């Protein structure tokens, strides 16, 4: 381990050096701690939901409480864990390192965005603690704005505030990637993780203001009886859904694009070869971000929206599937003639592909108009978006943590145990959520605290899976924490990987690089990198394409 690095650079480990830091790496760790808290809250709520659904009548809580459980689970997980997780933790830590910069473009704004997140989070926790929230994370009006008796107002205010955190982070990333790349780091030498975050940032700064305004309007209607969405006051409840999904559908891409970026780093590293179709993967991130803004009303096929609108949005929803498919095909093709290892991050990345494929393909069922009239608002939808957001985004996040943990902490974690955890996660996840596809097709609606007895077997299966899944999440929490003190010292580039972040110490110094690096190689190129200490340069079987 280097003598001085960002963790010990300031005198001692005093709390003030953390709370007033403008170092992107330390801010990333502040985020890591706070999103973990929300993940834990959301996870406990999810566990209670699954226990409750063990019996048709509901095993654990009253209907009011059940409705609060799934609402608070959704709000905590989506707004305070999934959306900030990869960008604000891994993106924050890595983007300056990956492009050879000393920090983000606006370090103080970066710290500000964390404080905004914390303030927003406090409002939401206040709502949870004082009566809870029972509107569903979707806040559909007029239920949220008129009829709900729960603490809607503080929750809405909290999410409104939190939106600024997201906007500022996105702004910071865009400016940083544009202006602070090291010499030689051209756009097409950028790591795909940076491309994915660039696309994500676009969605953050363009979409987030809309959800902020929408929730503000719902809050105003609730507090001052202004008629925006309540038909009794001349409003239109469907308008709320248009505004809400205009952000909240692209928000799915805020969650999954960064995970795709993580996987695009892991796969070439552990296949030890350049990623197949670099420009197609980079371009597909941008395509997803752009087309993703044009599909929102596929959440509304059965609201009575016009048939022409439905046809248009169904068509566009199928288009957005193509760039996602392109990524999966390119990742798979990257394995061809690789030198593949099964280090833990790779096991997570392959697990991601498996779950994301199922999640993505089941989106085709929901985009299909004739099928959506049956499966809309059933457990099929619940299963689908958990495959994307938990199977995809969380698997990517955990995989990314494993990949960059040696960089972040300077230490390695137990190899076999972490591989075992990845397998547990994969199996537990499928057991939890696959039965829900069938439940949905059989007709079990979402958000039911009680259900007809014929649905019990599948619900019990799902709950059993959830207990395995919970173990899959607890294990990494334990051994990663353990490794911070007792793990093997990693060295600057343990895998080894090709990115700039691996050319500096682990953990990196506060200024990231002792000397500003200069990039002279193409991304993920193992063959012209003798510095990696691999067999590069030795004669290989002939291949087309070289650098």
């Amino acid at each position: 381990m280097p003598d001085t690095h960002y963790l010990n650079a300031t005198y001692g480990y005093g709390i003030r050096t953390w709370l007033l830091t403008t170092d992107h790496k330390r801010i990333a760790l502040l985020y890591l701690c706070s999103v973990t808290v929300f993940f834990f809250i959301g996870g406990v709520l999810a566990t209670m939901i699954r226990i409750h659904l063990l019996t048709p009548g509901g095993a654990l809580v009253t209907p009011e409480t059940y409705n609060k459980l799934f609402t608070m689970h959704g709000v905590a997980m989506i707004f305070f864990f999934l959306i900030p997780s990869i960008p604000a933790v891994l993106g924050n830590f890595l983007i300056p390192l990956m492009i050879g910069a000393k920090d983000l473009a606006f370090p103080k704004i970066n710290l500000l965005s964390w404080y905004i997140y914390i303030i927003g989070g406090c409002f939401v926790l206040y709502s949870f603690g004082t009566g809870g929230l029972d509107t569903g994370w979707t806040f559909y009006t007029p239920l949220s704005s008129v009829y709900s008796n729960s603490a809607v107002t503080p929750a809405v205010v909290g999410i409104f505030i939190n939106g600024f955190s997201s906007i500022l982070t996105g702004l910071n990333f865009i400016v940083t990637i544009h202006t602070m790349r090291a010499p030689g780091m051209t756009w097409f030498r950028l790591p795909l993780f940076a491309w994915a975050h660039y696309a994500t940032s676009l969605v953050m700064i363009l979409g987030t203001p809309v959800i902020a305004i929408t929730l503000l309007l719902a809050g105003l209607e609730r507090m001052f009886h202004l008629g925006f969405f309540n038909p009794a006051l001349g409003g239109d409840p469907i308008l709320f859904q248009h505004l809400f999904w205009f952000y909240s559908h692209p928000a799915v891409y805020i969650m999954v694009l960064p995970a795709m970026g993580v996987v695009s780093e892991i796969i070439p590293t552990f296949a030890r070869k350049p990623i197949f179709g670099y420009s197609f993967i980079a371009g597909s991130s941008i395509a997803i971000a752009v087309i993703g803004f044009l599909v929102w009303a596929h959440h509304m096929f059965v609201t009575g929206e016009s048939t022409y609108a439905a046809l248009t949005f169904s068509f566009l929803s199928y288009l957005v599937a193509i760039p996602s498919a392109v990524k999966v095909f390119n990742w798979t093709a990257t394995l061809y003639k690789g030198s593949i290892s099964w280090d833990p991050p790779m096991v997570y990345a392959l697990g991601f592909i498996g779950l994301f494929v199922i999640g993505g393909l089941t989106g085709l069922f929901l985009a299909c108009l004739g099928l959506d009239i049956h499966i809309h608002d059933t457990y099929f939808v619940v299963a689908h978006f958990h495959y994307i957001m938990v199977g995809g985004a969380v698997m990517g996040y955990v995989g990314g943590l494993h990949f960059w943990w040696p960089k972040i902490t300077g230490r390695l974690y137990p190899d076999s145990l972490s591989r075992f955890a990845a397998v547990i996660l994969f199996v537990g996840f499928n057991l939890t959520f696959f039965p829900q596809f069938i439940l949905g097709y059989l007709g079990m609606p979402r958000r039911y605290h009680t259900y007809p007895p014929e649905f019990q077997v599948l619900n019990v299966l799902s709950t059993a899976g959830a207990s395995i899944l919970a173990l899959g999440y607890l294990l990494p929490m334990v051994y990663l924490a353990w490794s911070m003190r007792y793990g093997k010292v990693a060295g600057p580039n343990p895998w080894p990987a090709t990115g700039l972040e691996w050319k500096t110490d682990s953990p990196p110094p506060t200024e990231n690089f002792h000397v500003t690096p200069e990039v002279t190689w193409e991304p993920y190129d193992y063959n012209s990198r003798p510095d990696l200490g691999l067999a590069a340069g030795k004669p290989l079987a002939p291949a087309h394409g070289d650098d």
Partner: protein
Amino acid sequence: MQSQLPLYPPEASNFAPHVDALMVFITSVCVFFTAGITIAIVYFFFKYHRKAPDAVGIPIHEDSRLEAAWMIVPLILAMAMFGWGAVVYVDYRHTPRDTLDIYVTGKQWMWKLQQPNGLKEINELHVPVGRNIRLILASEDVIHDFFVPAFRVKMDVVPGHYNTMWFRPTKAGRYHFFCSQYCGTNHALMGGWVTVMEPSDYAAWLSGSSGGSDQVVAGEKLFAEKACITCHVPNGTGRSPSLNGLYGAQVLLADGTTVTADEAYIRESILQPNAKIVAGYQPLMPTFQGQLTEEQILALTAYIKSLQSQPVPVKGSGIAPPTGKK
């Protein structure tokens, strides 16, 4: 109810076989791709497993023909899914003319369903096999959704305006219906049963069930109580157009456009009379927003619909001249 584990609910409407066929088609395509990708990954994983600790892979960068292929082939399959799904959906959203109309009102947390003769049911719906059934959906409070898994159809029930849905039951039996749009505390209890009966059984059930005041009678009474009758004089001599023959006809508006007089139009004209002014009339009518319950609006609508067969006066009607009922 079922001892084994079924993969799909009973097929009991005209839409069910189509939706299930779509499901089989899309599932097949998806299973094919999932299997292909899984096999490729597993095969590559073992075949190209690292042979020596310092071994690297063979660099292969890009192949634009391959990229094109895996964009175009999925696109074609996706368009097939889109097209087939669109056909089913357009059929679902286009209600046939000859329907048996049931009025459905959702409120936290129960359903009221009314047969054409005014017979009311709570959380129960009886319909005959083989008839096209149209549900006219209204909400008293928040958004609900009427969902019958065995029929494979659902539609949101949105406060402030009417949605309609239709289906043709094909198999007698008793099937669940659910509220599938989250609507508050007892959302999960807001369901019931659809009983599909042979037409003769249905007729017997309808005539045998006592109670349930006639919708039309109730509407006619309201029409007088609310003083609608003072302006909407049947023979066309009042300050407002006669409503005889109105339902289903084209109405000529003051701005020169025409509109079909359906449930939504009638509802809007009661609640927001100035939204659409009939050509040749003044905006005199007061709003009834907040003064009528959804059920009263439905009763009035039923009464106005019953006037469909009444003689249309030559003058004093809003109906556009050349076309009557299509």
